[in-house]
C-alpha cells in the first residue's frame, strides 16, 4: 500500500484504533501488533518476499545474540561475517546481479568476445535496501560493543520491519528505535497532532509539488533531443525540486505516522537546498543514509587511509560516495553520480575549510550576498549532477549535457508559469520554516487554533484541487 491510497488510510485507521484501544494494555501485545501490522503491510506490497524478510530477521537476531556471547575474537568475527554475508548477499543478488552480468558482458564485448550469459531478471524485493542497512548497523553495533543485542525477538523483528519506514526509510539505527520498542508507548496529544501536521505537509509536498513536477520533467527529458537548452536547464531544476518534494514528503509522512503511534523516528531532511557547501548539503539530504554511510563506511575508510594525509581522505570520500550512488540503483549513472559528489568535496578538503554548522541567515529574513552565492553554487552543483541521476544511461546523460551547454541556452522557452509559481510558494514556506523539523512545525507554537485550522483546510483543499496525477514515489525502486 502506498501511503497515498485508500487502502492504506483504512489500514492505518484500523491499526491506530486497535493499537491504542485494544492492544495498548501492555508492551508485549503492543509490539506483537506492530509486528503483525508491519508484516501485513509488507505482504500487501509483495507477499513473496515476506519469507526473505522474516528469514533475514531470524538469522540476524540469532547471530546478534551469539556475536555478543562469543568468547574469542575469531568466532566473533566469523559470526559477524556470516550475518553480513547473508543480508548483503541477498541485497547484492536481487539488486545488482543483473547489473554485474550486463556490465561483464559489455566489458567483454568491447574486446569482441561474446559471452552467452543472460540476465536473470530477478524482481527487486520491496524495501530491501532499507531493511538490509538496519540489520547491518545492528550487527556492527553489537560487534563494536555499542549496543547489546535484544533478547526479545518481537522487538528485533519489529525494528527491522517497522512499517512506516520499511519501504523508503528513514533508516533508523537500533540504538534509536529498539529502546522505544522496549518501552510501552503512551498516547501523547502533542506528539500525535505534530505527527498529523507533518503528514499533511508531506502530502502537500508529494501531491501538489512533486506530482505536478513529474509531467513537466518527463515531457522535457523524454523529448530532450528536440527542446532548446533553456528547457533542458529548466527540466533539471524542476527535477531537483521534484525529487526533494517527493522523497522528503514521503519521509515526513513516515515520521508523522510513526508519531501517531508513539514513535519518534529519525529525521531525514533538513532543508538541504539552503546549504552553503556540499558537506552541509549531505548533512541535510537523506540524513539517515549519509550518517549510516559516514559511520560504517567513511569513518573506517578514512581511518585506514589516515597515513596518506589529504589524499587518503579524498580517496575515502570518493569511495564513500560511489557507494552512496550505487545504493540508489544498479546503473553506472549512479556510480558516476556518486563519484561526482565525492569530487565536490575535494576543494573543501584541500582548503581545509571546516564548515561551521551555523544556520544560513540565522534569525534574519534574507540571506547575505555571500550566503546567497554559496547557496546558489551548491544548488547548481546538485542540479547538474541530478541530470545524471535521472538519465537512463551515461550516454544519455552526456548527450543531455552537451545539448544543454549550447547557444540555445539563452533561447526563449515555455516557462510553465503555474508550476513555477507552485515551486516558488513552496520554497518560500520552506525558507520561512527552515529552523524546524519540517516547514510548518512551528504553527503549533505561534498561531491561534482558528488560524491553524483555516491553514490546514486550505492546504487540504489545495491538495485536492491542484494536486498532480498520482505517481509512484521515486525511491520505491530502491
Amino acid at each position, binding site marked *: 500500500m502506498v501511503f497515498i491510497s*485508500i487502502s492504506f488510510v483504512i489500514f492505518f485507521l484500523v491499526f491506530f484504533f486497535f493499537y*491504542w484501544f485494544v492492544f495498548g494494555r501492555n508492551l508485549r501485545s503492543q509490539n506483537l501488533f506492530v509486528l503483525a501490522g508491519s508484516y501485513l503491510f509488507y505482504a500487501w506490497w509483495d507477499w513473496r518476499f515476506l519469507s526473505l524478510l522474516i528469514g533475514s530477521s531470524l538469522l540476524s537476531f540469532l547471530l546478534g545474540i551469539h556475536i555478543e556471547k562469543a568468547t574469542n575474537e575469531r568466532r566473533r568475527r566469523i559470526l559477524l561475517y556470516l550475518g553480513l554475508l547473508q543480508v548483503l548477499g541477498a541485497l547484492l543478488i536481487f539488486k545488482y546481479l543483473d547489473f554485474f552480468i550486463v556490465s561483464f558482458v559489455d566489458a567483454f564485448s568491447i574486446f569482441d568476445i561474446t559471452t552467452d550469459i543472460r540476465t536473470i531478471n530477478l524482481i527487486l524485493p520491496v524495501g530491501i535496501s532499507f531493511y538490509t542497512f538496519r540489520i547491518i548497523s545492528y550487527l556492527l553495533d553489537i560487534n563494536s560493543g555499542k549496543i547489546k543485542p535484544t533478547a526479545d525477538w518481537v522487538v528485533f523483528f519489529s525494528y527491522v520491519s517497522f512499517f512506516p519506514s520499511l519501504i523508503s526509510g528513514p533508516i533508523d539505527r537500533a540504538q534509536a528505535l529498539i529502546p522505544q520498542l522496549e518501552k510501552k508507548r503512551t*498516547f501523547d*496529544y502533542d506528539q*500525535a*497532532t505534530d505527527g498529523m501536521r507533518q503528514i499533511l505537509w508531506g502530502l502537500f509536498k508529494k501531491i501538489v509539488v512533486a506530482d505536478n513536477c513529474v509531467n513537466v520533467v*518527463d515531457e522535457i527529458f*523524454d523529448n530532450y533531443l528536440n527542446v532548446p537548452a533553456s528547457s533542458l536547464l529548466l527540466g533539471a531544476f524542476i527535477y531537483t525540486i521534484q525529487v526533494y518534494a517527493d522523497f522528503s514528503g514521503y519521509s515526513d509522512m513516515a515520521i508523522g505516522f510513526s508519531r501517531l503511534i508513539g514513535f519518534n523516528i529519525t529525521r531525514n531532511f533538513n532543508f538541504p537546498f539552503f546549504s552553503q557547501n556540499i558537506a552541509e548539503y549531505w548533512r541535510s539530504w537523506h540524513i539517515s543514509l549519509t550518517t549510516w554511510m559516514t559511520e560504517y563506511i567513511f569513518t573506517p575508510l578514512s581511518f585506514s587511509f589516515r597515513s596518506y594525509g589529504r589524499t587518503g581522505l579524498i580517496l575515502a570520500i570518493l569511495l564513500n560516495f560511489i557507494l552512496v550512488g550505487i545504493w540508489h540503483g544498479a546503473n553506472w549513472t549512479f556510480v558516476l553520480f556518486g563519484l561526482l559528489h565525492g569530487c565536490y568535496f575535494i576543494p573543501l578538503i584541500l582548503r581545509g575549510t571546516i564548515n561551521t554548522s551555523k544556520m544560513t541567515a540565522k534569525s534574519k529574513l534574507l540571506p547575505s550576498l555571500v550566503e546567497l552565492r554559496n547557496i546558489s553554487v551548491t544548488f547548481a552543483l546538485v542540479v547538474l549532477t541530478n541530470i545524471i541521476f535521472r538519465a537512463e544511461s551515461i550516454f544519455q546523460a552526456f548527450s543531455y549535457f552537451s545539448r544543454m551547454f549550447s547557444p540555445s541556452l539563452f533561447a526563449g522557452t515555455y516557462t510553465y508559469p503555474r508550476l513555477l509559481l507552485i515551486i516558488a510558494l513552496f520554497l518560500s514556506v520552506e525558507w520561512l520554516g527552515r529552523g524546524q523539523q519540517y516547514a510548518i512545525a512551528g504553527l503549533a507554537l505561534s498561531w491561534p487554533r482558528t488560524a491553524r*485550522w483555516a491553514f*490546514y*483546510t486550505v492546504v*487540504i*483543499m489545495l491538495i*485536492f*484541487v491542484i*494536486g498532480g496525477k498520482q505517481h509512484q514515489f521515486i525511491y520505491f525502486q530502491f
Partner: protein
Amino acid sequence: MKQFLKRILHFTFLLLLIFMVGMILPATPRVSESILFVKNDKDSLLANVDSPRIIFLGASNLLLGLNSQIIHDSLRLNPINASLFWGIGLIYMMDNAINYIKSGDIVVVSSDYSEFYGELAYGREELLWTVLDVSPSSIMKLRSEQWLNIFRFLPSYSFSKFALTEWLFKYENAIYSRNSCNRYGDMYTHWGLAKPKLVPLKKIAGDFNSSIIDELVKFQTRLREKDSFLYITFPAYDSASFQTFKTKILEVENELKKKHFALLGTPYRYNVPDSLAFDGAGHLTKEGCDYRTRLLIEDLKVQMREKHWVY
C-alpha cells in the same frame, strides 16, 4: 486521547461542511464556458434533427476530426456529431444517445483506442463534472462502474468551487470552449488556426477490457431493436502515436472483427500523415478533417452498397 479524537471529529466535520457547500454551489463561470457544456447542445440536436440521420459517437477524434458539412452534401443525410470530450467515457455517451435514437438512424462509433483498456470507458473527472454541472438529470442513470471511477474526484470537484480563479476569470480558450462547435456538432474554431506543437499519445493504461466490446454488442442490439444500424470506425492517429501503440491498436481491431461488427476501414487506413494532425492523437486540422471525412464517406458507401441502402 479524548481531546485528540474530539478535535479530529470537529475538524472532519468542518471539512465535510465545506465539502457540502461546495457540492451545492452552482457551476462556476469557468466551467460554464468549457467544452463540457456542448453536451446540452448536442442533446437538442439528437432530439430535434430530422431523419434521415447519421449520428457520430466518440471522443475528441470525432470532435476535432470530422467535417459534417461534407457528409451532408455527399450522402444527403443529416449528420449529428454527438461526440463529447475524452474523459466522459464511451459508456456514458452510448447510454445517453440511445434515448434519442429514431428508426432508420445510422450510428457511427469511433472510440479512442485507450478506451478499450482499463476503466477509461467508464469515465473520469470530466464525467463527474458533466453529471454534476452540465446534466444533473443523468446522475441517476450512472452505472456502478462509473461511480467507482469518479467518486474520488468529488472532493476536488467541491473544493474547486472555492477557488477565486474559477469565478473571477473567464478563460477564453480559443479552441476548447462551449462555443467551439458548429451546427452539426463539429469543433471548428481550430480550423483557421496555426498548427500548435503535436503532442503524441504517451500512455494507454491498463489491460484490454473485453467488457467494452460486450457493451458495444449490447448497444448494437438495442439499436437494432429501434431499427437502426451501427458502424464502428477508427480514430485518425498521427504516426508517432500509431507506432507507439501499434500492438494495442491492432488488438482492438482484432477483437472488433471477432464480434463481426460492421467496420469502416482499418486502423492503418486512418493513420494520417503528421501534416494533417493538429495538437494531439486523433485531433486533425481542417485539411485533416476533410481528408478523414472523405475516407469515411468512401467506406460508408461501400458498406451501404453491400446492404442496398439508398443514399
